């Protein structure tokens, strides 16, 4: 809804403003302070990171020009490829699970029932809660002997799990926390899409005797698809960068079983102080994220386009 309405607002104001352009006020002074700040804390780090990535530099030692050595080292670094694989699994799971549950939650909270506003407010709370604080409590809940989760599992006859303490279950366990925290965001986005749905198709579908599933499958789902796509884009960007929860709960462990690129990057730069290599990793990571975002936006643009065509 937001992107659509802003898009139209943009073109409307554009048309209106083209007429009195000779007395168009000078707006640049409003932007300059922000440009300076953004230049200092955002653009400067980008450029500096690029420069550091072609240098060999461990903190406390002299830095020397290294050309592409850091990048070549990255390409042959098994630990990096492993972290890339962990990032991929984590991201896919941490997008799909919230997408599914968030859509379900949106469908529920879109309907009318008593206590809806309050319950929706409660549902949104995890997203705003401090990730580190949340992570600590989850760590206690995951505890194999004393944790409440294994107790709850025992009530339904499932044996104790090792959760974040086992190399095979650590990533799914982290995804569980991430899903718990970020499902509300998908819910809010989809809720925005549901609020904008037209009534008429549903009325005629009801007359034709469509059941609830058919209405969802053939009416709701295609119409909220653009919002789901927005949800996928935002969630992917956030999940791939996820740091707080993973670092606070496992620091990439056990061993390196949950070490994502971001965690490996942190360890390289701030545990080993290998600034040059860490910067190269940051550059590659940045390129991966940008590529992913553009790929997803292309999919979205194409979806919109074919949508227009059928109309």
């Amino acid at each position, binding site marked *: 809804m*937001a992107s659509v309405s802003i898009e139209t607002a*943009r073109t409307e104001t*554009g048309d*209106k*403003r083209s007429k009195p352009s000779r*007395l168009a*006020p000078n*707006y640049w*002074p*409003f*932007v300059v*302070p*922000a440009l300076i*700040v*953004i230049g200092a*804390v*955002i653009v400067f780090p*980008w450029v*500096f*990171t690029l420069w*550091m990535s072609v240098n060999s530099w461990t903190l406390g030692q002299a830095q020397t020009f290294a050309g592409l050595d850091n990048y070549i080292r990255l390409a042959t670094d098994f630990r990096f490829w492993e972290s890339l694989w962990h990032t991929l699994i984590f991201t896919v799971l941490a997008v799909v699970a919230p997408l599914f549950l968030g859509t379900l939650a949106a469908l529920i909270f879109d309907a009318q*029932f008593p206590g809806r506003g309050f319950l*929706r*407010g*409660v549902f*949104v*709370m995890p*997203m*705003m*809660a*401090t*990730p*580190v*604080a*949340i992570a*600590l*409590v989850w760590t*206690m*809940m995951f505890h194999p*002997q*004393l944790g409440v989760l294994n*107790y709850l599992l025992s009530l339904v006859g499932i044996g104790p799990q090792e959760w974040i303490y086992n190399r095979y279950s650590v990533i799914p366990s982290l995804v569980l926390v991430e899903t*718990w925290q970020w499902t509300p965001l998908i819910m809010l*986005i989809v*809720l*925005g899409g549901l609020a904008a749905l037209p009534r008429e198709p549903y009325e005629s579908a009801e007359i034709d005797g469509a059941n609830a599933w058919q209405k969802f499958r053939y009416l709701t789902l295609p119409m909220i698809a653009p919002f789901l796509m927005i949800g996928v884009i*935002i969630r992917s*960007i956030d999940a791939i*960068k996820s740091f*707080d929860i993973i*670092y*606070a709960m496992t620091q990439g462990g056990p061993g390196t079983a949950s070490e994502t690129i*971001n965690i490996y*990057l*942190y360890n390289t730069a*701030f545990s080993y102080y290998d600034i040059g290599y860490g*910067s190269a990793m*940051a550059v590659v990571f940045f390129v991966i*994220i*940008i590529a992913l975002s553009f790929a997803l936006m292309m999919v979205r643009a194409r979806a919109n386009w074919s949508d227009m065509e059928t109309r």
Partner: protein
Amino acid sequence: MEHGLVERPLNKRPLVRRKTLDRIGLLFAALVMVSPVVLFFLWMISLSLKYEIDNGAYPPILIPENFAWSNYVQVFRENNFFLYFWNSVLVTGAATLLALIIGVPAGYGIARLKAERAAIVIMIARMTPGLSFLIPLFLLFQWLNLLGTLWPQIIIHLVVTVPIVVWIMIGYFETTPMELEEAASIDGATPWQVFRLVALPIAKPGIVVAFILALIFSWNNFVFGIVLASRTTRTLPVAVYNMLSFEQVSWGPLAAAALIVTLPVLVLTLFAQKQIVAGLTAGAVKGG
């Protein structure tokens, strides 16, 4: 069709009953959906109010016989939490206020200039992992000899707060009407007067949204603190994490500390739910 016409009036009463049944069903579904959230926070409170014996009990105890209020006292007395709370207030407060002072006019300017490129920079900044800002800025702060003060954290939190404020304000100013502003400037008002007296008052709800979201995301930030904070300049998220690593892990005080860190944000979330929802659906959709 004929059949339906005959049947419909007869069905009217069951239909009403079905509707209330639907609502009860929906309420039940919503409660199931919300239960992981409620149970989690209940358990968090429970952990924070139990003595070690109760926290180690099997099967687990939800409501203990004796409440361990001392956990909270211990957090503040033994872990310097007053100082860290104050650090958090200073860093978040300064970073949010600076972001508003810089970002609100910028959002206005970008919206009026239709400077798409500036907007794209903001969006890419949102996509960039925080760590890639941290390495160069860490070196810069070291070089400027600022480490050990709160300034590095205030400055680096601008990476979080400025894009949020600018992004939300661009979206907001794009939807506010131009007519009043045009009339004012035809009457001879300077751009600054137009902004100050016409645009700004209308934009108040948008500013509130930007303020709340910048506040929350700055308060919650962890990654900048673990690198830049020293013993005396820790913010709350770093302080609570450090409790985990440096103490023998006793769950009660740890959970109490976690609750203290996140309680201000949760209270704000409940009270400003409408603004947060509006900001996240508009702002987050656009990348804030």
